[in-house]
């Protein structure tokens, strides 16, 4: 399969769900339930195509840089804005994640949404969501990504507010949308800086320029700001601290939507963006990202402990796990961070779909008992469902084990990698808060997930309803079982205790940093042990890209550079670029960086035989931290589980007594650390207050000035009014009176009777005859 075929197929994957959306918007009402089958079938085709594309990419082209199309889209003055699609290893993996989960959710909803009157609309929305999410995944530039980013926000808004007749759902949709906009504003600013500096949105071009030493406003600080601003988009979309408040409210949407959008794919888009821009993070930006992730992980985990709503616990768990991924990327554990995205997508989608299964069963039982007042999502109303819903229970348990980080699961491998990364990072930089938060969150995660499992599935049924729940049919169970199988380790690596020899790690090696060493962590700068092979590869790429004039002009310099260290090499190339740029500017022409900068170097050097050529101090440290991190994470996970069993299963201690001991901790956690109230008090009331101040200014100062001018005007106009009333109005009224009189006279002949008109016409003809003869 040629690269072109792969790209064409991925474009087909992108547009198929859009077609279902358009089709269902127009014909959904007529099709009724058939629309669900159509949506599911199309996503099934999508999934098959995605598997073909991913298989090709991950076998034949695994060592290649991104395969991409570029198309000139806009011509702005003398700049060209290109868009395009690209498929690299990350894209290939994400394509499978998105299409598989989307397919399973389509399938699941056939049963879950069966009785909803807006069934076709639901499938139409799922279609446009899948389209936008796939658009993010196969973007090869920032602009495409931003466009689909906003589309995803829109479809998320539509789906959260799907039951818009409920006020809470409509409000949650608005909250999600507005909170996301705050992050997206940062993203937009980042794009402005990017375009202003580089005149392109392409990932590889931008990274090439940065590697060549061209920085925004020639300043490392601005590069940091650029990274953080673009990352702000991820903060919003991935519900990172401090914009995490929207995600739990988003649970007002239908549960399959929560599984698809607010657990597995859309919120992971932020992490995916972070992974995409990973090469351009400076040291400061990385510390920022790592802290944001760590804070999110620990804060959300502590909130999840005390929630009683089934879906809300999972929502905070999602926020916490997203924090994990971001933290992983922030400390430089790229592969593990991205792997956690994938493994988390499987088991969190599973958790949500299982919760959907439980809620569906509860609703059905309530329907049979004619009880419509109970909260079907409150875990205090559940219990004992291990017996009534064994398959749901078993799959849920698999996911719980995976998220808690127990060996032989996918979650263990990815989580362990992130924790090892935090340990190495803490060791190298002295930011020990990050590993502490990481391990703490791991313990708490194990605790609250088992609390949730025990309270809702174990023990005796707490209500009659829970006793009469029944296992759902295959439409719901097939997705659960499929996802449960994917929580095993062997899909990612043959060795359950070390993911780094598996295909996944090989396919998603860290792209390395392109940030000049001056602004980077010293431990992230490649260390070379006299490997000549590496430098040769570098130069072949370099020479091809040089334009001839530059090549001749600086051929001597090039010769010299062959013997120099590659780091030096990079800074010299950057120098070239700047020199040429200056020369062109002197001639009054627009400076085109594209001719001066060598991009081909960005990927080639890393994948000569599929192994990492670039050794940094960090990879060494990561390697050393692996064993201690594993032991520590096992200890914290098992202690978390143990505590959960002690309090909830065996009830050795009464949980109430602990709550009484630290009531403020409980209250804080239960009320989500008052984030919503805080925003209400500061941001919302602040905005309202500012509005009031402006209103006061408006009413008193501006209106005063206006009123004063008005008074003057009125005085003047009184004078003219007399003239107006007497003379002008007199004339106007006179002509109006005349018109009225004429009108009254002319109204008479308009009898509405054709005969009258005829007679008058004939009179007219007679008159004409009379005149002309």
């Amino acid at each position, binding site marked *: 399969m040629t690269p072109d075929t792969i790209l064409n197929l991925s474009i087909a994957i992108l547009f198929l769900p859009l077609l279902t959306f358009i089709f269902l918007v127009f014909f959904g009402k007529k099709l009724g339930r058939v629309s669900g089958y159509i949506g599911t079938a199309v996503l099934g085709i999508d999934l098959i195509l995605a598997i073909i594309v991913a298989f090709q990419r991950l076998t034949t082209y695994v060592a290649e840089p991104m395969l991409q199309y570029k198309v000139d889209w806009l011509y702005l003055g003398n700049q060209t804005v290109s868009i395009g699609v690209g498929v690299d290893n990350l894209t290939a993996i994400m394509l499978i994640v998105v299409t598989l989960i989307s397919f399973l959710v389509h399938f699941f909803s056939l049963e879950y949404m069966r009785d909803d009157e807006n069934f076709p609309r639901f499938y139409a929305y799922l279609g446009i969501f899948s389209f936008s999410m796939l658009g993010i995944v196969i973007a090869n530039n920032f602009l495409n990504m931003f466009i689909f980013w906003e589309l995803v926000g829109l479809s998320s808004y539509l789906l959260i507010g799907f039951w818009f007749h409920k006020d809470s759902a409509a409000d949650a949709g608005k909250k999600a949308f507005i909170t996301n906009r705050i992050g997206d504003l940062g993203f937009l600013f980042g794009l402005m800086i990017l375009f202003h500096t580089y005149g392109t949105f392409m990932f590889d071009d931008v990274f090439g320029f940065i590697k060549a030493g061209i920085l925004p406003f020639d300043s490392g600080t601005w590069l940091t700001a650029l990274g953080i601003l673009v990352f702000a988009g991820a903060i919003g979309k991935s519900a990172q601290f401090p914009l995490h408040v929207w995600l739990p409210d988003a649970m007002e949407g239908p549960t399959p939507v929560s599984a698809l959008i607010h657990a597995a794919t859309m919120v992971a888009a932020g992490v995916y963006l972070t992974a995409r821009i990973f090469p351009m993070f400076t040291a400061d930006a990385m510390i920022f990202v790592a802290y944001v992730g760590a804070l999110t992980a620990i804060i959300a985990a502590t909130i999840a402990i005390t929630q009683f709503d089934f879906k809300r616990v999972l929502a905070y768990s999602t926020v916490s796990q997203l924090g994990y991924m971001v933290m992983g990327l922030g400390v430089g554990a790229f592969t593990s961070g991205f792997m956690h995205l994938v493994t988390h997508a499987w088991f969190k989608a599973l958790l949500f779909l299982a919760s959907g299964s439980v809620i569906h069963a509860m609703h059905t039982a309530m329907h049979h008992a004619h009880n419509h007042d109970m909260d079907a999502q409150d875990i205090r109303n559940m219990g004992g469902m291990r017996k009534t819903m064994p398959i749901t229970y078993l799959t849920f348990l698999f996911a719980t084990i995976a998220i808690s980080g127990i060996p032989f699961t996918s979650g263990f491998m990815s989580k362990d990698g992130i924790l090892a990364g935090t340990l190495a990072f803490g060791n190298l930089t002295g930011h020990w808060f990050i590993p502490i938060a990481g391990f703490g969150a791991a313990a708490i995660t194990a605790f609250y997930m088992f609390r949730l499992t025990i309270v809702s599935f174990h023990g005796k049924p707490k209500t009659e309803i829970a006793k009469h729940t029944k296992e759902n049919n295959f439409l719901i169970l097939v997705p659960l079982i499929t996802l449960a199988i994917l929580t095993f380790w062997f899909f990612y690596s043959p060795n359950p205790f070390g993911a780094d020899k598996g295909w996944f790690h090989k396919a998603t090696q860290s792209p390395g940093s392109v940030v000049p060493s001056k602004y980077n962590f010293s431990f992230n700068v490649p260390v070379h042990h006299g490997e000549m092979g590496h430098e040769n590869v570098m130069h072949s790429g370099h020479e091809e890209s040089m334009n001839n004039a530059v090549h001749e002009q600086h051929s001597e310099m090039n010769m010299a550079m062959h013997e120099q260290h590659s780091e030096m090499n990079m800074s010299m190339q950057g120098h070239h670029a700047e020199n040429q740029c200056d020369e062109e500017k002197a001639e009054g022409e627009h400076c085109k960086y594209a001719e001066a900068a060598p991009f081909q170097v960005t990927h080639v050097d890393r994948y000569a035989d599929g192994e990492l050529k670039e050794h940094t101090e960090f990879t060494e440290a990561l390697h050393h931290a692996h064993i201690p991190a594993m032991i520590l994470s096992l200890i914290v996970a098992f202690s978390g589980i143990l505590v959960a069993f002690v309090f909830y299963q065996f009830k050795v201690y009464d949980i109430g007594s602990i709550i009484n001991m630290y009531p403020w901790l409980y209250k804080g956690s239960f009320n989500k650390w008052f984030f919503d109230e805080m925003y209400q008090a500061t941001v919302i009331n602040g905005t309202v207050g500012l509005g009031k101040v402006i209103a006061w200014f408006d009413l008193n100062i501006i209106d005063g000035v206006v009123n004063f001018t008005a008074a003057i005007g009125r005085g003047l106009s009184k004078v003219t009014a007399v003239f107006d009333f007497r003379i002008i109005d007199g004339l106007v009224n006179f002509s109006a009176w005349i018109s009225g009189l004429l009108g009254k006279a002319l109204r008479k*002949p*308009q*009898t*509405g*009777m054709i*005969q009258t008109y*005829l*007679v008058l016409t*004939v009179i007219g003809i007679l008159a004409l005859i009379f005149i002309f003869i």
Partner: protein
Amino acid sequence: MGIGLTHFLILSGILFSLGIFGIATRKNAILVLMSLELILNSANINFVAFSRFGGVNIEGQIAALFVIVLAAAEVAVALAIVLNIYQNYHHVNVDEINQMKG
């Protein structure tokens, strides 16, 4: 004196005036239609008379032929409208259908 063009023209003039009178005075829509046919016939007589005496030759007859075709179409549509009016008003008196009255 012999029969000339003028004879026919005056006959058509009489027919025309009668038609006008009928349209103007009768309130039944169908009678209005009949009077209209009189006017069309008077025009046709003019055409044929000029084709015979006026040197217009056979073309005058063709014009008359088209007028007849037109009259057929006109009567069909007009009667359809009259039937429709009858369905809505239960009478066909044109003087009472005066919603255009100013």
